[in-house]
């Protein structure tokens, strides 16, 4: 089984650096973590945290933090993919003369545009929705609120300002189900749900890692500090992230971590420094992927696209699958050849167990689903999401929208064949 090498190394480092994990629950949690069953890993620890020795408690806490962090990265990936699909689905609905008059279409198109950072488009769509007389007061208010948000976000993501209320919500149920024609049910899901799930996971990661970052010892302290800073960065708290990482012993965790810290630090520095920093960090894949998160201006933007193109050549057979997955999504977002991206991602898939999270990193599976989608292989994309949805909540909106895109675009003859 291939695993996410970097994060696993972290756990292994801790295992060596700290007292051995004698408690069976902790050992079980580590095994579940290795199998990418993060929620189950947390459950295995949660009930016995109090009975662990202090050293094992640190290790357990780190594992808890990392499990939330992995989940946050996963939801970030799902959210990005979901936004692309959501926009495509809204486009298909708009193209259909039967549905273009539906008030929900401009509203949710605007929500997805907002999520994609297309603020001006979002403002237009949401203004159109807010003016619609067919929307009831609650949804009209939401359209107005989000329209105003589009004016003020300036590079941030919506969840940095407003989060969805997920308390007691069935995440498989849509935000809106339009049954104005009882023979045609349309469902709409607010993309803010996935962003909220991502944000919640980053915060949980931070919560678990912060005590270790402050009081932990040795390697545990250093790793916890790095990942706490990393979480803060993705929460949009760049200044706090930089502050936490500034006091970091940069050399301690190796050049890759060092490069990433420097990129995160660059997020708050003057644009003029970017080109030089790019040159000194471009050889570290994780740092390159962080650059992608910063959406840098030229000349770094073009250099980044080129670097993303060549990056898979440096991926060995045991490359960190999470990183490979993040590379795939970054490459797709920058318009690289989707067939080549799919081929590169597929090299890291366990073909015999192609959709199982125990055998494939979940984020890699999301990237594969996105690459399949980009190559119009909708069945494979849906099948992968079907398996992922068994372990991770909140994917239904993406599945629904993708089914809608597929339904609109399929052109087949209607053939069915028997086989033995």
């Amino acid at each position, binding site marked *: 089984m291939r695993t996410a090498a970097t994060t696993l190394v972290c756990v292994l480092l801790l295992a060596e650096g700290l007292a051995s994990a004698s408690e069976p629950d902790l050992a079980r949690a580590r095994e579940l973590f290795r199998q990418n069953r993060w929620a189950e890993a947390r459950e295995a620890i949660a009930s016995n945290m109090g009975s662990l020795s202090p050293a094992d408690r640190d290790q357990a806490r780190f594992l808890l933090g990392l499990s939330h962090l992995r989940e946050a990265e996963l939801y970030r990936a799902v959210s990005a993919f979901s936004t692309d699909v959501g926009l495509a689905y809204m486009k298909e609905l708009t193209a259909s003369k039967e549905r273009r008059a539906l008030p929900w279409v401009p509203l949710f198109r605007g929500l997805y545009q907002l999520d994609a950072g297309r603020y001006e488009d979002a403002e237009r769509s949401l203004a159109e929705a807010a003016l619609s007389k067919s929307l009831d007061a609650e949804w009209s208010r939401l359209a107005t609120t989000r329209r105003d948000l589009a004016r003020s976000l300036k590079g941030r993501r919506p969840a940095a300002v407003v989060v969805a209320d997920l308390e007691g919500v069935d995440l498989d149920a849509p935000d809106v189900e339009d049954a104005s024609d009882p023979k*045609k049910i349309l469902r709409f899901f607010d993309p803010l749900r996935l962003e909220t799930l991502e944000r919640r996971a980053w915060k949980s990661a931070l919560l678990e890692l912060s005590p270790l970052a402050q009081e932990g010892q040795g390697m545990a302290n250093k790793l916890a500090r790095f990942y706490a800073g990393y979480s803060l960065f993705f929460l949009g708290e760049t200044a706090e992230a930089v502050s936490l990482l500034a006091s970091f012993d940069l050399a301690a965790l190796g050049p890759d971590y060092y490069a990433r810290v420097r990129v995160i630090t660059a997020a708050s520095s003057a644009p003029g420094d970017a080109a030089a920093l790019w040159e000194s960090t471009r050889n570290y894949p994780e740092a390159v992927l962080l650059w992608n998160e910063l959406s840098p201006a030229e000349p770094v933007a073009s250099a980044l696209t080129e670097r993303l193109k060549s990056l898979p050549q440096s991926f060995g057979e045991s490359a960190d699958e999470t990183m490979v997955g993040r590379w795939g999504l970054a490459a797709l977002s920058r318009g690289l050849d989707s067939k080549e991206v799919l081929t590169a991602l597929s090299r890291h898939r366990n073909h015999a167990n192609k959709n199982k999270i125990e055998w494939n990193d979940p984020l890699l599976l999301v990237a594969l689903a996105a690459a399949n989608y980009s190559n119009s292989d909708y069945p494979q994309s849906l099948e992968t999401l079907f398996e992922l949805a068994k372990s991770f909540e909140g994917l239904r909106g993406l599945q629904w929208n993708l089914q809608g895109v597929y339904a609109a675009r*399929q052109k087949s003859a*209607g053939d069915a064949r028997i086989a*033995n």
Partner: protein
Amino acid sequence: MNRIMVAVLLAAILALPAFGVENRQDGFPDGGRLVYGEYGRPATLDPITSNDMVGLRVTELLFNGLVSFSPKNEVVADLAESWDISPDNRVYTFKLRRDIQWHGASGGAGRRVTADDFVGTLDLIQHPRTLSPLKAPYELVAESRRVSEDTVSITLKRPIVNGLGRLSFKVVPTFALTNPDFFSRDDPFSQRPVGTGPYRLRTVTPEGDVVMDANPSYHRGRPHIDEMVLKPFADRNVLTQSLLFNSTDMIVQLNARDIAQVEGDKRFNLYPYNALSYTFFGHNLLNPHLKKKEVRQAIAYAVNRQEMLDSFYEGRGTVISGPFAPGSWAYNLDVKPMSFDPVRAKELLARAGYSRSGADGYLLTEEGTPLQFTLKVPIEKENETIKRVVLAFQNYMRQVGVKVDLQFREWQAWQEDVFVNHDFDLMIAEWAFDDSADISTLFHSKETGAWRNNFIGYSNPEVDGLIIEGKTTLDREKQRTINQKLHALLADDQPYTFLWTVTNYAAIHKKVRHVDIQPFKFFTFVDGWYIPTKEQGGSPE
């Protein structure tokens, strides 16, 4: 010339580099031989009466249609070079290529494909005496007409979704048939077909190998690989061994149990592909006991599908809840698979009137005989996986007091039993679908004749109504809603016990390059595959 015509012509011109050249300009070498293994032999080699996956794949090598599909599943020109669609979306007028000739056998040599061939093929499909699974799909054609030698016009009874894609039927030369008006599997053409495809039939050997040669005048350019051989196997284990011991170069659908072994062999590439397929137990609704919904539901509750999937397919698949594969746009995600619940199964059987048991522990019918079904299992000679599945099924059913007799039947005999004679209580098989997720032929009450797909005799007015509504609407979201309703209804009604969808893997020798697989028809892009010159010598005999 209207706007659609201009757009189509433009599309056809743009497609020229890929589909319109006589000689391939891709720089890949010609030559070599590819032997591919299938589990079971095709009953027919013609595209009219063929109803199974083995037949579908081989006819994809031998025949073409007016239009085909690109790797991104866009409709592209094939034997037609352009088309015009009337404003009311009912009349499709195709301008044919003038450079297509029938394969040089059975009097076909040198004969050009003309409008008469397309009109003749549609007439053949629609003839009352032709037994073809295509009959229902092509009932939508009101008229096909020769406009000129190179122009054919097809009028639909009503506009439909995917009208163009639905006219992708394979054309056959009616002049080569014994009877040009109707067609059956008895016609020698079904074993000696003449087509227009990338490969032409050379011979079928006494062992059943179908040997095909590259068509030198193929309109998309001569296929790179010289010779293609379909090698049928009666034993799934032997099929895998044939690959491992170089008797074949490729297995279209690898046995789930052998995936790890082949993946570990550096000589081969594994290609997963999603054929939108699922395995099921079908219930013959002519059987008075299976006619009761409670009995069908009890069967579903009695079977631990996840356990079977994990044990016999090493977990390489997904338990499903209804008549679509999870990769389909029509799959209803709100419907969950019935759980394994033998207690509930017994309750349902009791409610259906089966609460008394005999001395042997089996439930008794009103007549005092054991509640007993015959399960017809298609098997060539050996298929260890399917044997394990049905033995486990037999055991699960015993636990709830139902006796199941297993009858193993060779594939062709099984098809006769199921599709023609309806001589079964229970059967097991797999359905595969193209992207359209069209289940109408499986469950509409009118689809029950010989060689029709509703061989279980299912009849449910609500399902019929939804199927008709789905076929007549042009609104794809409405079609989706209808299919999701059908999913929920059929999941509750259980005309089948819906089992699972397993991952399809093709195992292909690494010497075969530039492989692109169409998940349903498999060989659509085979003309672009090639074997490097240096590696052409090592093909199996």
